[in-house]
Each structure stands twice: as structure tokens, then as C-alpha cells.
């Protein structure tokens, strides 16, 4: 195959594929479920929207309520709760809009870009969650550690700076674990798409 024109002839003269499907095979295929990357992105994204909020199912509501009351956190937490719900609705709306935009009949670049955009919404949602967790955590530490109830209960030889230090280290560790887990998941899902998108956009000549 010295030149590419000869391979064109070879290509054009190739016979039918050894694999052939009948109309009945095709009828069976259309009944099957898709296992496309987009489907997986949808499933995983829904889980990601739900998971940070499902944590509340496993918390003891009465104990949490009395903890908030004890340290006068009820109003603050209600405020965060309302803001959080509004932001989640916003994220879900943007995600849904982007998801509906994905069309397999668009060109390759638009399709890749639309899938990546949809996924980016979830990425931003996760970052928002990590940020809000950090902010609420710090705010809660501040309110609790400065309350007379906490200081009264603190043993005499305790060092408040150390309590703060340990709390912040734990908070950072928890956030870091979530972030790492997310990076792995995100990389795993989008590796191929990102590679193809970059290849498509690259304009390097020979």
C-alpha cells in the first residue's frame, strides 16, 4: 500500500461486513437500554445532587435541634437552609437545561462541549457544597466555642486554641477527602471526552 489512493480503491471494493443484522435484530436492539457516557453522567449527577442532602436522613433530628437551641444556632441554620435550597434549585435548573441541550445529532464538537458543560454544572455544585460546608463549619465552631454554655462545660485545663486547631484540621480533612474522591470520579468519567475535545480544538500543523 504505497500510496493512499490505492487504499481508497481497496476501501471502496470491500464487501459487506461479516456481521449483519436483520430487521428483527434491530427491533430487539431498540428495546435495550443505552449504556452511553451521557446516561452514566446523568445517573451519577443525580446521585451527587442527592447525596450531600441525604446525610440529613441519617442525622438524629431531635438531637440536632436541641444542639442548635443550646448554642443559639437555630436562626443561622434556618438562614443557611433557605439559601441552600434556593441554590440547589438553581443548579438543578441549569443542569437540566444543559442536559436537554445534548443532542446526538449535533456535530462532534458541540456534542462534546454540551456534555462537558453539563458535567461542569455538577462540578460547580460539588465545589459549592464543599465551600458551604466549610463556611457553615467555621461559623458553627465560632458560635459554639464563643458561647458561655461551651466555655462553662470546658474542663479547666483545656486550651481553646487547641480545640479550634483540631476542629479546623478535621474540617479540612473531611473536605479534602470529598474533594479527592470527586476528582477521581470526575477524571474517570470525562477522561475520554476531554481528550477528544482537546484533540478537536488543537490546530497544530504537521
Amino acid at each position, binding site marked *: 500500500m504505497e500510496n493512499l489512493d490505492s487504499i481508497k480503491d*481497496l476501501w471502496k471494493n470491500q464487501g459487506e461486513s461479516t456481521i449483519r443484522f436483520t430487521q428483527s435484530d434491530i427491533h430487539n436492539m431498540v428495546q435495550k437500554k443505552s449504556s452511553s457516557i451521557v446516561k452514566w453522567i446523568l445517573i451519577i449527577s443525580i446521585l451527587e445532587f442527592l447525596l450531600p442532602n441525604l446525610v440529613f436522613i441519617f442525622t438524629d433530628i431531635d438531637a440536632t435541634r436541641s444542639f442548635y437551641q443550646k448554642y443559639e444556632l437555630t436562626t443561622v441554620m434556618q438562614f443557611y437552609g433557605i439559601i441552600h435550597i434556593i441554590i440547589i434549585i438553581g443548579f438543578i435548573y441549569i443542569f437540566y437545561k444543559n442536559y436537554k441541550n445534548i443532542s446526538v445529532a449535533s456535530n462532534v464538537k458541540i456534542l462534546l462541549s454540551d456534555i462537558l458543560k453539563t458535567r461542569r454544572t455538577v462540578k460547580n455544585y460539588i465545589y459549592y457544597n464543599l465551600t458551604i460546608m466549610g463556611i457553615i463549619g467555621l461559623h458553627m465552631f465560632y458560635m459554639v466555642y464563643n458561647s458561655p454554655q461551651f466555655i462553662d462545660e470546658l474542663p479547666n485545663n483545656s486550651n481553646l486554641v487547641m480545640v479550634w486547631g483540631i476542629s479546623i484540621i478535621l474540617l479540612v480533612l473531611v473536605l479534602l477527602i470529598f474533594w479527592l474522591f470527586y476528582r477521581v470520579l470526575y477524571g474517570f468519567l470525562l477522561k475520554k471526552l476531554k*481528550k477528544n475535545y482537546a484533540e478537536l480544538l488543537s490546530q497544530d500543523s504537521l
Partner: protein
Amino acid sequence: MTKELEQKFAKELEDNQSIIHKVCRSYTNNEAAHKDLFQEITIQLWKAYPKFRGESKFSTWMYRVSFNTAISLYRKSKRRVETTQIYDNLKELEYQDYDESSDKQLKLLYNAIYSLNDIEKALALMYLEDKSYKEISQTLGISEVNARVKMNRTKTKLKNILNP
């Protein structure tokens, strides 16, 4: 979706399936993966079929959806055997196991295409199918200039693989 629509779709797909097989064979390296990809393309085509208004030929539309599925949507099946892009090993790809009858040169050509990256595979296929740069740029969503640059690079790569 009505039974009638499904029947029309199955008929059109059966008649035009050779294009999809060429895409599947270029993007996979064994029969099981080929069938998996064919099935995924069929599902995607069927999902998009009600919106197909016939602005383009069924085969052109099918080609676009097939590339999109292969490049953007298809997840590697566990059954698919990973191969490296080392050209020396091309002759060992699994396709030969079930495709004894086909021409040796054609096998080498498919193996060479398989060793290209996903975008280059699409370019190589469209080159072999004599598609115009306009159609290539529209299918991939890139400028004609970029399509030409990429096509030249792909052709050189293909040539080097076929004539080491």
C-alpha cells in the same frame, strides 16, 4: 413511538448498516465490542429518529450520529481488549480471529485506522468515503482550514503506519 415508525426505522437501518459497520470496525478491535457499539449507535439513532426531518440524507445523518456515539458516548465494554498504539503489534489484533475470509490488506488498513486516535479515525473514514472538506468540517464542528490541517496529519500518520 409507533410500531410503524419503528418498522420504517429498522428497514432503513438494515439497508444502510454497512456504514455503521465500517465505523464500528474502525473504533473497536473485537467482534463483541463491534456488536456493543453497533447496538449503542442503534439506540442513539432510534432516540434521535423522531427528530430526523430529512434535511439531510438518512445515510449522512446516520454517519454523524455514529461518529458522535463512537467519539463521545461509547463506553468501553469490559469485554473489549485494550491495545496499545504500538504499530508493530497491529497484526495481532483480535479481528483476524473471526474475519479469516477478508482480504489481508483490508485487515491491515482497519488495524491501522484503529491505531489512530478517535478524531483521526473519523477523519480517516471520511477521507476513504470521499467526503468533502465542507462535510467533514460540519460533521466534526471545526473550520475547513482546521479540517485540512488535521486531515493532512492523519493521512501522513496512516501512510507511515501502512508503510513502516
